[in-house]
């Protein structure tokens, strides 16, 4: 599958998969097919909505059941949190995808243990509501509840309760799991346990006693002003702005650093994307008491046993929702939702080895690529902050403009609204892009590069890149000697020049745009232009 168009929200995932199977992978860009929304099996509601409140009743019931399970059971509440401590990625481009899998399986668990087969984890939209919902201080929805005391009264109690079963689990891990844990810095069980106790550094202590397990309280539920700022519309909007899943320049990247493994601990070379680095981190730390609690110890949310606090899942549901908003924004605007190859494969084949499914079974080796779509767990979100931005953007976007040209020889002629051309020339956010389709060179063909000229005078067969008529060069890479049969067509997207000379009739309602393909560097040129379309993006 190519990197340009691969809608991966569940609404269009199936159709895209079929397109890939049919061979769209060979094309530099695919068609811009519209896929109508489908109905999701589960809805993740805003926690403040009626649907969200109903979901919390099932959530409460299931947490009680998980607390009551023996520590040997993978669904035991604390054992479930240890999956996060042992495996969670932060500061890298698997942050979103790993947490999608983790929450998705957890949701299945809650469904099974509550008996509510409609359950989906609600989200806490902290941009709209910068305080912990009051209901999250009820019963076992707070880790300070007395129901946690038999396990978290103090560290000795917790150790006696959980450590034997964890050691047994540790000893059962396979070579691949051990290899990943080595990367994380957990060469031995004791290395891992040091992060539970803090190993002398109270700030690094993932365990929290029952009364200190959550800093924010029913009487003091508000995110502090600094945290509210990190969750504010302007920060979230900036976080949604990048148009690439990954870019080495983090200001242009939706995700954090590309690292060798999802287990690579964050450090000096880590670059945090805006949404992970600001609202995600700050909400964790604020709830845990970073600031008022000095150097620690903190509540659960500040360290990697954060899933001990039930608010964790509502927080991460919102993070996942923002990924979904970003994905739909990308699709709406015609931007890629995943990195190009070979990065896409690198991202997708990363193995996650520690998940537990809704039946309490270890999932075994699953790949990141399985969790790129919300279709994997069959859910959609009730609209929240960010969805309005999409509506506004859609209404304002002139990007739906699309004109197909008439082709004769190697020349395509198109009639394009002058207003769109002027907007393009004005260096605004709108860019006109020509999609030119040419046949893939056959075996033995020496002509592999073509210049795309726009509005060039008659007789021009070469153009300098500085020419106002020069749009770009399209090139085929590699030989085709391994291919059998007809290699097919390829479509390239080439931005039109920002020079008024390239367009004729700008004073009229419609301007004339003439696109020609010429072989680069004096190569022989067959008649090859098959189609040309101009789109505003």
């Amino acid at each position, binding site marked *: 599958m190519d990197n340009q168009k691969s809608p991966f929200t569940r609404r269009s995932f199936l159709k895209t998969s079929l397109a890939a199977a049919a061979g769209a992978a060979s094309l530099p860009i695919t068609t811009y097919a519209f896929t109508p929304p489908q109905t999701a099996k589960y809805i993740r509601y805003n926690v403040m909505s009626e649907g969200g409140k109903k979901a919390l009743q099932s959530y409460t019931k299931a947490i009680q059941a998980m607390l009551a399970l023996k520590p040997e059971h993978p669904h035991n509440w604390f054992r479930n949190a240890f999956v996060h401590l042992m495996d*969670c990625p*932060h*500061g890298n481009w698997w942050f979103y995808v790993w947490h999608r899998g983790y929450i998705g399986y957890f949701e299945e668990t809650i469904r099974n243990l509550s008996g509510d087969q409609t359950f989906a984890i609600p989200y806490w939209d902290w941009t709209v509501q910068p305080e912990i919902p009051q209901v999250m201080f009820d019963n076992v929805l707070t880790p300070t509840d007395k129901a946690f005391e038999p396990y978290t009264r103090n560290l000795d109690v917790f150790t006696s309760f959980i450590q034997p079963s964890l050691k047994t689990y540790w000893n059962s891990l396979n070579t691949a799991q051990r290899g990943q844990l080595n990367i994380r*810095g957990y060469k031995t069980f004791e290395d891992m346990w040091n992060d539970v106790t803090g190993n002398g*550094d*109270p*700030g*690094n202590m993932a365990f929290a006693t029952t009364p200190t397990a959550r800093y924010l309280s029913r009487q003091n539920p508000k995110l502090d002003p*600094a945290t509210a*700022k*990190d969750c504010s519309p*302007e*920060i979230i909007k*900036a976080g949604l*702005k*990048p*148009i690439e899943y990954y870019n080495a*320049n*983090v*200001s*242009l990247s939706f995700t954090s650093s590309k690292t060798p493994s999802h287990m690579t*601990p*964050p*450090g*000096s*070379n*880590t*670059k*945090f*994307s*805006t949404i992970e*680095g*600001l609202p*995600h*981190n*700050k909400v*964790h*730390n*604020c709830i845990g008491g*970073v*600031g*008022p*609690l*000095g*150097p*620690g110890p903190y509540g659960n949310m500040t360290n*990697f046993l954060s899933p001990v606090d039930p608010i964790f899942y509502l927080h991460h549901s919102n993070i996942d929702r923002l990924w979904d908003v970003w994905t739909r*924004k990308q699709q*709406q*605007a015609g*931007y890629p939702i995943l990195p190009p190859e070979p990065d896409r494969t690198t991202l997708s084949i990363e193995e996650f080895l520690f998940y537990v499914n809704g039946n309490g079974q270890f999932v075994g080796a699953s790949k990141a690529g399985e969790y790129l779509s919300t279709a994997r767990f069959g859910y959609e979100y009730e609209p929240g902050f960010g969805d309005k*931005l*999409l509506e506004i953007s859609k209404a304002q976007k002139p990007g739906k403009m699309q004109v197909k040209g008439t082709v004769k020889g190697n020349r395509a002629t198109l009639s394009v609204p002058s207003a769109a051309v002027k907007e393009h020339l*004005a*260096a*605004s*956010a709108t*860019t006109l*892009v020509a999609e030119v389709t040419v046949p893939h060179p056959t075996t033995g063909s020496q002509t592999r590069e073509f210049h795309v000229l726009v509005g060039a005078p008659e007789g021009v067969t070469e153009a300098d890149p500085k020419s106002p008529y020069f749009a770009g060069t399209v090139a085929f890479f590699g030989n085709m000697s391994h291919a059998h049969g007809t290699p097919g067509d390829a479509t390239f997207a080439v*931005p039109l020049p920002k020079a008024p000379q390239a367009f004729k009739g700008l004073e009229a309602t419609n301007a004339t745009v003439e696109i020609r393909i010429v072989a680069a560097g004096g190569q022989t040129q067959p008649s090859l232009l098959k189609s040309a379309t101009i789109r505003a993006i």
Partner: protein
Amino acid sequence: MQMLFSTLFAFALLVQTSSAPGRVVNLVLPRNLNADEGVAVELKLGVLERGNEVRVETISGKLLGVISPYGIRSGNQAGTYTIPVPAEAISNNCVSLRIILDRHSRGKRAPTAQEVRSVKLRITSASSV
């Protein structure tokens, strides 16, 4: 499209201190912004004491964002973070920011060069949102 991906940055031109806690950095954009382009400040942090946070404010005291490292092991550098800069904070292609190390109960102060290792301005691409 290439223009959309272009990224430019400028290092801090001047470092100074004033009576308010924090380090003031004056940054200059390398060119005029195109329509719908934005600006972000990118901070590379070194090792922070547990619980310390980095605040970024305008000179007039408007909070732009707070960096609160999460998941960083003790002794590790905290990584690089990006905070959007609103248009009203840009004047004549210049941005002046105050960088503060917030130690909470132990007060605020200017971060050392080891705690905040670099501050850069970046022009962010246009987008549909």
